[in-house]
């Protein structure tokens, strides 16, 4: 990122101040510029350095010298002349820009920040802030940079890092200030869950629930820990608790329905999945789960649910799964032609989605 931005800057150099120097210095500046144009940066640096010796108060000379170092990708060499240029021309944005990049490239992120702030270079500023332990500010600036350059892979990469760092920082703060709080245990539980250390995650969530039994979401998350470990009976207990706490939560109803289905309790599962569908209609995953649960005990309901999935999803893998399930139901009903057509649709979507997956990086 740094290099890319640097070269962007070098390709489109900002307006610099009008030079007011002696003819001798001007000749050396011209010779240096000519050498630069030939990509002979060593020659250019030699010419600019002689000019600097002749006129140590000319900001443009130090700017050109720093610029030549930058073009040579000698960022360490660029810092000193650019700092002198900044002293001589404190208002020059061009100098600030180059100096900010040079400092950042050499790892002096904190020194780079004031210069990058002056020129509103959000991307580089965000990177510098990430490196100096200011993830919150980094996230804001990187998002601002992404608004100008959407999908820039480098910006996205650093934003991801900044967000992770911000999350960690917030968690550290939470745990240092309120180590025994429900939220603290919840956060630890979530971390353990993500790292698939399920027994520890269970302990953390149980602590959180003991402290704040009324806190929504705790049981839902603990249920998901149990579900990830295929402990469906325990997952059911937690989802049931969450559903009781939040009777209007479609997710709690969906997850409870799924836990019941995994245990083969299809009638109860249908009840919860229908409730979830009522609370938040047209969720394809809920409808698909409803179809699965109903396939055994109520094929008509299953047929209806799978048809709704197809209607909503059109040609996604979930729609393909719904076609496959429908074909199974219809084969059992002796509707072989219909089942054959559904299998064709399933195959078509499989091919289609496999192609899409292949195209994705």
């Amino acid at each position, binding site marked *: 990122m740094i290099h890319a931005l640097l070269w962007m800057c070098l390709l489109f150099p900002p307006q610099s101040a009008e030079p007011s120097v002696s003819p001798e210095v001007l000749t050396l500046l011209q010779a240096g510029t000519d050498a630069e144009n030939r990509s002979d940066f060593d020659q250019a640096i030699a010419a600019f350095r002689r000019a600097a010796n002749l006129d140590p108060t000319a900001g443009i000379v130090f700017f050109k010298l720093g610029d030549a170092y930058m073009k040579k990708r000698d960022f360490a060499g660029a810092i000193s002349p650019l700092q002198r240029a900044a002293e001589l021309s404190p208002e020059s944005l061009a100098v600030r820009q180059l100096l900010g990049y040079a400092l950042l490239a050499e790892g002096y992120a904190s020194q780079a920040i004031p210069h990058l702030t002056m020129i509103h270079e959000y991307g580089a500023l965000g990177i510098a802030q990430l490196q100096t332990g200011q993830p919150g500010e980094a996230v804001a600036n990187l998002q601002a940079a992404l608004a100008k350059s959407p999908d820039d892979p480098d910006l996205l990469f650093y934003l991801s890092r900044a967000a992770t760092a911000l999350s960690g920082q917030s968690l550290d703060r939470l745990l240092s200030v309120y180590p025994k709080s429900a939220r603290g245990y919840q956060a630890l539980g979530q971390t353990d869950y993500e790292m*698939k250390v399920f027994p520890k995650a269970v302990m953390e969530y149980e602590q959180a629930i003991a402290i704040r039994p009324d806190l929504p979401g705790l049981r839902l998350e603990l249920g998901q820990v149990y579900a990830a470990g*295929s402990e469906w009976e325990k997952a059911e207990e937690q989802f049931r608790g969450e559903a009781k706490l939040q009777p209007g939560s479609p997710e709690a109803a969906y997850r409870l329905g799924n836990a019941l289905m*995994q*245990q*083969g309790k*299809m009638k109860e599962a249908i009840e919860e999945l229908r409730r979830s569908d009522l609370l938040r209609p047209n969720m394809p995953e809920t409808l698909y789960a409803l179809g699965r649960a109903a396939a*055994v005990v109520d094929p008509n309901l299953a047929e209806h649910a799978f048809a709704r999935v197809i209607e909503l999803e059109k040609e996604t893998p979930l729609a393909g799964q719904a076609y496959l*399930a429908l074909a*199974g139901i219809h084969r059992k009903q002796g509707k072989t032609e219909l089942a054959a057509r559904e299998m064709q649709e399933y195959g078509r979507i499989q091919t289609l989605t496999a192609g899409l997956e292949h195209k994705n990086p």
Partner: protein
Amino acid sequence: MARRIPRREFLASLGAAGATTAASLLSLAPVRILAGYSAAAKPKSDPIFQAKALKGVDFVLRNSPTSRKYLIETMPGGVALLDYNNDGLLDIFFVNGGHVRDIVGATMSFDRRNPAYWNRLYRQNPDGTFTDVTQQAGLADAGNSNYGMGVAVGDYDNDGFPDIYVTNFGKNILYHNNGDGTFTDVTAKAGVAAGGWSASAGFFDCDNDGRLDLFVTRYLDWSMEKSKTCGSERPTYCPPGEFPAITNILYHNRGDGTFEDVSVASGIAAKKGHGLGVAFADYDGDGFTDIFVANDVTNQFLFHNNGNGTFTECGLESGAALSENGKMLSGMGVVFQDYDNDGLPDLLITQLPHEPYVVFHNEGRGLFSAQELTAGFGVLSGNSSGWGVGLEDFDNDGWKDAFIVQGHVFDNVEMYDGSLRYREPPLLALNHKGRFVKADAGSDVPVAGRGAAFGDLNNDGWVDVITTSLGEAPQCYLNYGGELHWLTITLRGKRSNRDGFGARVQVNGQTRFATASGSYLSSNDKRLHFGLGSAETADIEIKWPSGIQQALRGVKANQFIVIEESAP
């Protein structure tokens, strides 16, 4: 409180019963019981497995894990329960892996001449101990360039003695049982060496001509040279999709000691997959035995036997190719028996974690539906990796239970996923009228389980289990049984193949499809075991592969009987 009969006491009683066998032949038209011996009545009713070391069995499955993560290392090995010398006692045959050198580009030399890497045959003695008879039986030479995988057992020449077929990464070997305690390697003459990476194999009669044919699954188009590792910082075994799929093989028995490779002509070779397990049953009742191949991350294959020497793969159309969610299974082991006593063979397939083991319930009319959740496997298997599998009535209540050996493919899986385990204890799930519930398997010791063979090792009327695990001695789970009744049937085909493989046997409303195949890389006791619950007699109906049907009413419980196929 139950009284357990000591094994020695029981075996002594068995020997006495055996001595009277010849004199006590029963002839109950139309079924002829050629031999019978009764076990002493057993107390107690719960199935209680106890993990036991078998005296005299010193086998260790040496898979030679290397840092190169050659995929073969994590896949063996099979075990067979067979009575090779027809003394009425089950013997045990183990397939060993081999020595893999931990170098890049290791060659096809697995040090199989070293006794540590031999396959092993253990003969059961009347006192319940075992004797290693590998060398004297002529089974020591497993082929230096063969890395061992699985085993199939069947009497392919109908001479009354079970023959052994060993699958390898390399060339497979057919050992003909000479009937005198020795075997002869007849692979070259028989023409069944296959090649490449074979996995499970099974004998069955594909055309009902009375001779056992041979089906061999093959896993991957793989070689030591093509091997690679997956994972970055923590290299591990690659998934099968990293290597090309390959065809399975069907050998037709010509009846003269030779086989013909009919893979192409039969349509078997029309499908490429990543075959591991294989099981046989006539799922649509048309009188011809069909084939199910458990594929690893490929559609499962259901080869319908067209009855004219050809097969049609119809897994997708039958609903037995994919999970209920339309996902491919990582199929490992498979068993093809009727778990819900509706008379139709169902499929139980073991696979890797995050999806339950799959139950394809046979709905009739050639259709299957995924029923693992209603069958209870949603809560039994989500984070486990299953391999060898059996559906046997371990508690003799009239419902077939499931026993599954478990353990992940990756020996470093814990580094990838803290919720998974490389070593796991086995799963015993008792069948409560179609719903399986976890029970005590007799051991919580975790192992990297692979093969499993099922049979009544001590002839006490309760089915036992022998399993293999990577790098370790085998495990024996002896079933100490209870009070419920049972009946064990040995089929003797006349027009049909002598083993009676492919016969449908119904006893008091239960159905078994005669086979030694199923599980993973392994071969089971060919005898058909039925739990009778509290019933003291049994009504038996047999439909032989020849089409002949026989029936027997009021057979006394708690005995081993031999039923010979009647004349047409």
